[in-house]
């Protein structure tokens, strides 16, 4: 048995398959950062830190004649989103019901995806993570509140990346509100704004719940690294006669190698 303790849960194999597939579907659509940055791993639950290849000075050596530096690492953060599933729902599913209520799982999946997106794009100080938008040396561009005006700042962001020697293709990560505006908008003549922006970027547009505004980012690789220890999994916590308490969990950290490879756009 591993640390997820799944075999202790009063859940049939087919119900576990249902829960895993439901979580996978919900997570895959919302995990924007993984669609845009390099992914390393998963390196397992025991993996605790990322090597930065850097050192810090150590003030005093234990004896004369030696000097020392200390390795700097980026510790992984464990993220967990708890949820519960009704045992009656699971029993009905095992009887053949095809409409199991998994709303709590869906909510937990969304929350943990948002946490991952926010950590990667905006940073997480208490977890020692610097986000893409935080690290970017480019001046913040105004996206504005009217979707019709988005092409200009997006084109401006691409221009800045080109001037910085950052090659494409480029992608646009849009916060939930901004994404909705874009998909609902047709420009003069009925041309979908989504297609216009894709042409400017020569790359995709990604729905990034949790992102404030938007970020234009190079997809060339080597600039941003998401390091996964335990990849997203469902674990078992406890149960009573009514519900099973489960959780989604992952461990990760994130490192920006080329800060200038992305331009944040303010909403």
């Amino acid at each position, binding site marked *: 048995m591993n640390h997820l303790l799944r075999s*202790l849960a009063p859940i049939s194999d087919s119900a576990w398959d249902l829960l895993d597939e439901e979580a996978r579907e919900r997570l895959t659509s919302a995990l924007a950062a*993984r669609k845009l940055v390099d992914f390393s791993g998963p390196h*397992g639950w025991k993996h605790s830190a990322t090597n930065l290849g850097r050192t810090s000075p150590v003030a005093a050596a234990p004896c004369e004649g030696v000097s020392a530096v200390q390795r700097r690492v980026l510790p992984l953060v464990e993220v967990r989103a708890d949820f519960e599933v009704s045992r009656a729902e699971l029993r009905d599913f095992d009887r053949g019901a095809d409409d199991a209520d998994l709303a709590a799982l869906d909510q937990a999946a969304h929350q943990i995806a948002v946490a991952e997106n926010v950590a990667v794009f905006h940073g997480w100080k208490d977890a020692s993570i610097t986000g893409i938008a935080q690290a970017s040396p480019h001046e913040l561009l105004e996206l504005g509140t009217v979707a019709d005006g988005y092409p200009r700042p997006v084109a401006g962001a691409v221009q800045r990346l080109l001037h910085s020697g950052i090659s494409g293709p480029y992608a646009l990560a849009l916060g939930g509100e901004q994404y909705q505006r874009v998909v609902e908008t047709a420009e003069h003549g009925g041309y979908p704004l989504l297609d216009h922006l894709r042409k400017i970027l020569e790359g995709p547009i990604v729905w990034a719940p949790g992102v404030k505004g938007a970020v234009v980012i190079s997809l060339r690789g080597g600039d941003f690294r998401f390091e996964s220890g335990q990849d*997203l999994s469902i674990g078992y916590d406890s149960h009573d006669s009514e519900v099973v308490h489960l959780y989604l969990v992952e461990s990760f950290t994130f490192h920006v190698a080329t800060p200038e490879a992305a331009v944040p756009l303010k909403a």
Partner: protein
Amino acid sequence: MGFDQYHEPPEELPPATRTFARLCASLTEEAEAIGWYEQRLAVEPDPEAQAVMRDAQGEEFKHFSMDLEFLLRRSPAWRQIAQGVLFKSGDIVEHGEDAEAETFDEDDPGTDSAPPNGSVSLGIGSLKGALR
């Protein structure tokens, strides 16, 4: 060959499992090609032809290694066992048995409830190639 890599109806398989199956098929093909070049090199007397085939076999080594690395990234249990076996001197079988024992608790019936491919995770990994 059609869709031979699928052992179950493809429409019933999740996308991650279909991708996994494709790479497994690719890994098999690269291993076969390495074996074929090995045999051809053993019987080919022309040094120039040998050089060409040796170069081609090197490509297959690379392809096989890339396929394997992809699969190991998507299957933590496989990766953990591979880490206990690959690039180590000593008794290969012993390493294999030890790595398997460390990865799975063989007395634990609960391993049946682990996600597909023996993974302990949902197997999501990188989505960089999955952009729409």
